[in-house]
């Protein structure tokens, strides 16, 4: 497939935004049972707005993918059948919840809905946050299933696709939370950093699994089944258009096999070992700069990962365009 940068930015940006929000809620949940100190309301407020900014940036990027962005509102219509439509609905709901969550924290308006003496899990921010967590995971599933549901794009059609989207989002979100927290609540940096490393390692295993799976994939369609001629030797002589067509542009990455392979190694280094190394060094030396570098490295790596995710997928229609 042809990697569209609008979609690459959309998925990586909202993934980091979702991960950052989940990181905030993780700390609140830990703090409510007394396992961690609860940071000030302004901490949650500021970081929620950063998460929101990432989500908005992702949404803006997605508009560049549309031929008719002015009709984008129509895309909420077919949520019964289309994962894309579901994503279009869940994303603004999630954005709204993140906004409300941050605002409540910022204003310090946090009544306990279950009475004065109820446990802190009954607090308004906690409940809004919980809805946000559900929306965040729903959004990960929607985003992943947009690709995972296309059964003949065999590289994508696996449960590993939504799992990878989820883990990459959470890993980059926790890495970002580590960076942001270094300035605002230093006592939480190690907590975030630890989880960021753990999720990055977890994502390494699931993405590694999908890489191995895709390497040995056997494509069900062949040129013989595509044109229905049962012969082992079929050569294409004409593609039906001299100057190329939509079919020759949309479904091919247009780069060499060597380039594709090098991008794989680029993302394998930039997403996993390098950020982990930088996180460990940053945590040991209390260096915000190193932590920041860890996030930037991982994010750039995720851009490469997403590019590779698209480029590696072989669409069966390419069988009709053998000489690209």
């Amino acid at each position, binding site marked *: 497939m042809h990697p569209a940068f609008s979609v690459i930015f959309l998925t990586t940006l909202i993934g980091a935004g979702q991960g950052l929000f989940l990181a905030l809620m993780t700390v609140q949940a830990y703090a409510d049972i007394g396992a961690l100190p609860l940071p000030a309301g302004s901490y949650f407020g500021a970081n929620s707005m950063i998460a929101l900014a990432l989500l908005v940036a992702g949404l803006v990027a997605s508009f560049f993918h549309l031929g008719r962005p002015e009709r984008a509102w129509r895309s909420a219509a077919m949520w019964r059948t289309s994962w894309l439509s579901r994503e279009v609905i869940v994303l603004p709901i999630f954005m709204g919840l993140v906004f409300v969550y941050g605002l409540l924290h910022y204003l310090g308006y946090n009544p306990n809905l279950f009475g004065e003496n109820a446990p802190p899990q009954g607090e308004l921010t906690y409940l809004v946050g919980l809805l946000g967590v559900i929306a965040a995971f729903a959004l990960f599933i929607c985003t992943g299933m947009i690709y995972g549901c296309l059964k003949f794009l065999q590289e994508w059609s696996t449960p590993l696709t939504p799992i990878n989207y989820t883990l990459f989002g959470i890993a980059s979100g926790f890495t970002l939370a580590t960076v942001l927290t270094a300035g605002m609540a230093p006592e939480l940096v190690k907590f975030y950093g630890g989880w960021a490393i753990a999720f990055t390692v977890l994502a390494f295993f699931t993405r590694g699994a999908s890489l191995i799976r895709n390497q040995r994939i056997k494509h069900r369609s062949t040129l013989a089944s595509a044109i229905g001629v049962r012969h082992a030797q079929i050569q294409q*002589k004409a593609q039906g258009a001299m100057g190329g067509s939509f079919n020759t542009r*949309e479904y091919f990455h247009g780069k060499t096999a060597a380039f594709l392979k090098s991008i794989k190694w680029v993302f394998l280094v930039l997403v996993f070992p390098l950020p982990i190394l930088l996180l460990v060094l940053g945590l040991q030396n209390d260096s915000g700069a190193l932590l920041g570098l860890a996030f930037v490295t991982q994010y750039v790596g995720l851009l490469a990962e997403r590019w590779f995710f698209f480029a590696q997928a072989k669409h069966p229609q390419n069988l009709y365009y053998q000489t690209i």
Partner: protein
Amino acid sequence: MTQLALVIDLNVCVGCHACVTNCKQWNTSGSAGPLVDERPYGKDPTGTFFNRVQTFEVGEFPHTETVHFPKSCLHCEDPPCVPVCPTGASYKRKEDGIVLVDYDKCIGCKYCTWACPYGAREIDEKQQVMKKCTLCVDRIYDETLPEAERKPACVLACPTSARLFGDVHDPESEVSAAIREQGGYPLMPEWGTQPSNHYLPRRKTKMKIHKDELVRTDNPLKKEGHLPKVDENENFLEDTASW
């Protein structure tokens, strides 16, 4: 239930691109607006087409065969492009099974092209909406046309009658009979999309003549031996009777 479709006879198609040309002509002049052409006189012209003819060479020289392969939307019975459309712009008509795009609803997200294994859809780079074969829905029901012309433009253009059009759900129709009797097959059946368009395979018309068929096996000469030779000394009926 009606399911209109094309049946394309690869045994007859000569790859002349008349169907491509007539399709483009009809559909670019239609009420839905032109099908874009970019750099039509440049060195790399491109544009939106509903139908394209490709050519494949099957086998190894000298035992090769050229297959011309017209390719357009197959109007699947279970079209994977329809459920993924977020706006409902892509839909399959209940009354005749044609898969259509509502150009006023399409947002040009291209998700349907990812979901079509055949690459049958093309975005119009100018209008920025998805386009595809409509089976000339604006022709086939047009009662101002003579009945014989109420067919898709490609079918009318084909000089070798390689393209048949009709209801594949009606067992009595010409297309059903062709599929049934001439080995019609769908493309990429492995994905369960159940394409309505079918293709008829290349066929060789050969007559097998066995050696013994060159000789009349029921030849009485062979069966009973030669007729008894006439004994010239014997009396014949004529001799006896020639008094």
